């Protein structure tokens, strides 16, 4: 930048030569302000989503830039919510980007006093082993009158009200096939 440009860019010069002699508006505008854009307009992609909190089902638009969630806000198209969100819905980006989020598997061994790290794959293998072992150990073929039960009472599950229908479907399907019946969720609470 030459001196001339520097001078021309100097707001005092703009005050003296432009329409804003008092330097309170146009003359005082900074380069940052000149270049300001809404990150919602420059997002790489927008996903149509639904708020994860209560059951009103407000529409959300999830703006993504550089593979990261840049903004989550209400979807004005939704006839349910008309673009509005409550404080929880409005905090959705904060939710998914919270520094407290767990992103690795944690393991507490029996009688342990601290978490340990575990590979995801290892954890899955261990869980599968335990499910089968427990199922085996607690299997009930029939009741005392000989009526079939075909189940285990050793494995229980709680949760699903915050999950997708597809997930609940697989959960119920798998547990039912395995004979686990104490499958419950918030609807009972």
């Amino acid at each position, binding site marked *: 930048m030459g001196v001339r440009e520097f001078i021309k860019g100097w707001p005092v010069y703009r005050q003296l030569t432009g329409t804003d002699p008092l330097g309170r508006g146009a003359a005082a505008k900074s380069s940052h302000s000149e270049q300001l854009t809404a990150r919602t307009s420059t997002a790489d992609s927008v*996903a149509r989503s*639904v*708020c*994860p909190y*209560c*059951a*009103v089902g407000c529409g959300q638009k*999830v703006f*993504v830039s550089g593979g990261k*969630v840049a903004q989550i806000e209400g979807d004005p*198209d939704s*006839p349910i919510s008309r673009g*509005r969100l409550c404080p929880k819905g409005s*905090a*959705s980006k*904060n*939710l*998914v980007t919270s520094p*407290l*989020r*767990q992103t690795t598997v*944690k*393991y*507490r061994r029996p*009688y342990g*006093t*601290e978490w340990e790290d575990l590979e995801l794959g290892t954890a*899955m*293998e*261990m*869980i*599968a082993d*335990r*499910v089968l072992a*427990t199922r085996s150990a*607690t299997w009930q073929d029939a009741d005392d009158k000989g009526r079939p039960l*075909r*189940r285990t009472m*050793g*494995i*229980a*599950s*709680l*949760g*699903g*009200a*915050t999950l*997708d*229908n597809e997930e*609940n*479907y*697989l959960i119920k399907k*798998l547990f*039912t*096939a*395995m004979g686990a019946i*104490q*499958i*419950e969720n918030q*609807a009972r609470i």
Partner: protein
Amino acid sequence: MAEAHPVGFQWVMEAKARGAKVIHVDPRFTRTSAMADQFVPLRAGSDIAFLGGIVNYVLQNELDFREYVVAYTNAATIVTDGYRDTEDLGGLFSGFDPETNTYDPESWQYAGHEQNGAERQDHARQRETAAALQHETHGMSVKGETERDETLQHPNCVYQILKRHFARYTPEMVETVCGVSQDAFAEVCQAWTTNSGRERTTALVYSVGWTQHSVGVQYIRTGAILQLLLGNMGRPGGGIMALRGHASIQGSTDIPTLFNLLPGYLPMPDAEKHPSLEKWIDAVRHPGSKGFWANAGAYGVNLLKAYWGASATVENDFRYDYLPRINGDHGTYRTVLDMIDGKVKGYFLLGQNPAVGSAHGRAQRLGMANLDWLVVRDLFEIESATFWKNSPEIETGEIVPEECRTEVFLMPAASHVEKEGTFTQTQRMLQWREKAVEPPGDCRSDLWFFYHLGRMVKQRLAESTDERDRPILDLTWDYPVGGERGDEPSAEAVLKEINGYEVATGRPLSLFTEMKDDGSTLGGCWIYTGVFADGVNQAARRKPGREQSWVAPEWGWAWPANRRILYNRASADPDGKPWSERKAYVWWDQAKGEWTGEDIPDFPKTTPPSYRPDPGTSGVEGLAGDDPFIMQGDGKGSLFVPVGLIDGPLPTHYEPAESPVRNPLYPQQASPTRMVYRRPENPLNPSPPEHDTDLFPYVFTTSRLTEHHTAGGMSRTVEHLAELQPSMFFEVSPELAAERGLKHMKWGHVVTARAAVEGRIFVTDRLTPLRIDGRIVHQVWLPYHWGSNGFVTGDSANDLFGIVLDPNVLIQESKVGTCDVRPGRRPTGRALAEYIAGLGRAAGQHQAASVTAPAPATDPAASKPDEEPT
């Protein structure tokens, strides 16, 4: 509603702006009250008395919408002679067995249907298995043909029974029981009735705290009776709206992760009642009943086909024998007690935090501490994952990490933007979410977790010849995988299976009526059939609301068949014409010979209003042209429920399991059929007529704050929410503050026989003492969002509750209890355990005498009739 569902509340504000009167009934003045035209404070646990009073007002003054009531409800139906009401039996209905604390509903049947009751052999079992939750949805299984007296004069007709039953719910009684002044009560009665009828409708909105009572089902029943009497069901601006609290809690009931249900409200087979496919199907379709449940065979077979695919054939009853059987109470509370007893070894927690969110947190945590293994899948390190290191029981020495053997896997979950799939919101609408980003690190969707768990289990058993492994090996589990990591199962493929398709061609079904019971179609959840109609993901539809009609049928997809208002045939008169132009919604188009309107008609499309079935016709064809309640066995709205409820055919005010007052209405103190678990770790506070009820003289209730979400796992962990309500506090009236020496913003604690919970005291005019039965009753309110983890921490209010359940659905009473409130912080460490134990001992002295006599309890977190004359 403004507190917990602010965005939904915009529609109430919209109605208000157009002149609707908004009435809010709640123990405490909330954000909703602030916007209401009338706020009615009442005692937690007294809602049936309150609503029953309105029912009585309607009946005594004959203010019911008579034409609607006669044509569309069972008001005219005659009940068997043997029926005896609570009026006659001191608060019990006929058929009560004091041995088991259950009813034999034989004497509640419609005249001529008496054998109906006999079918349900074991009433205690009914209660244990939450059979009513099944009935809730597979309809009242009564025969289609009933004896009726449309003059409503027959002494045994439902209308007259109703009138007698509610006769004692006078304004004076409402005042006595609820603490609502007669003036305020009259204002509500007048508003509700004058705003209902041909030209106007009134909506009843409740939050699901209503269900968290020992008589929760009957709360909602009372609302239903009132709305039916006033002709507010199936009509725009009317109805009963449950404001549910979790993004897909409706979906998790439709496609249930519940012990007693299979997808589409099909019952889990009972070892005793459902020995065969046929028995199972018949239990649902109830031969002789009218309506769409008649096709239950197709629904059941399609589910079995969806589970076991090619292996499920007509010859093997579609592998019905692969289904595990229930034979009792396997609900979450029973299961937790079993954990304490060492009967349960492994536990999955899927986005659920019972250590904070379930009643009796201590029992929850002690149960978890006695497992072999626990898998927690969550976004955050929730309290249920860390019970072994920082639960209150660590402090009291009840859990010692070095002695607690539970192996814990904390598996990070994908958030709602990191996976695709559908949520079903509170109005039964499915909305598809697109995936925005990949989940970070080891975070995975539950779809991924269960798909791969299933795959690994199948692999491990591949060589098994054990017959018990066949259901796993034959399970269809071939979902395509993809995504950036290449191993994410396709949610859309799962949704297609849920929707159902023709086995031969793969063509998606458009409606459940296309389902066949011969194995040629399959579908995982019949009520969701149509969500993939024409091979299009209908739940992903996003036509802007402003570009379509006010019903907005092209946004998402609502079950069944994309209907937005259930039973909307009732929005037209018996002749098929709208009750009024203002309230036109669905009507009969004579020229086209079909039902039409703003919504998808909830009725056989071409069945004219004048249609009358031949005698003996059942099923869909059995529905007369003016039978709008097409899922009920008689096609009528049920004022009186002869079948399916454990605790009586009509709502009756019983005191909550814990109450400071004697039931002013009946000698029977609390619900006689409530589920009580009498165990050392589950002591209950004494209630009248037990002695020493002044140990716990106050009523407390809990609810949500706008700024937090349930057990706080998704809000205490979010700094922009945590800062808005950073600390546990509880609210008392100035009068109670004076009585107990409580100071605003100072520490105080609330105690029950189970726990002591501390927080900052808020002294506020928003709570008021009430005059109940001649004495002053104070109420305390607590939010229940805090626990030991997150940006902000605090004691958990749910620790205060014991475990007492509604017998119909096995949901706990966690919206009302008795307590004491004391200034200062609670004791800590072992002193806390001793403190509680002392309270428990004091309370326990009074338990012995009280098993059936009086138990009490309930009240509403929020019940709000909103009236919307639009």
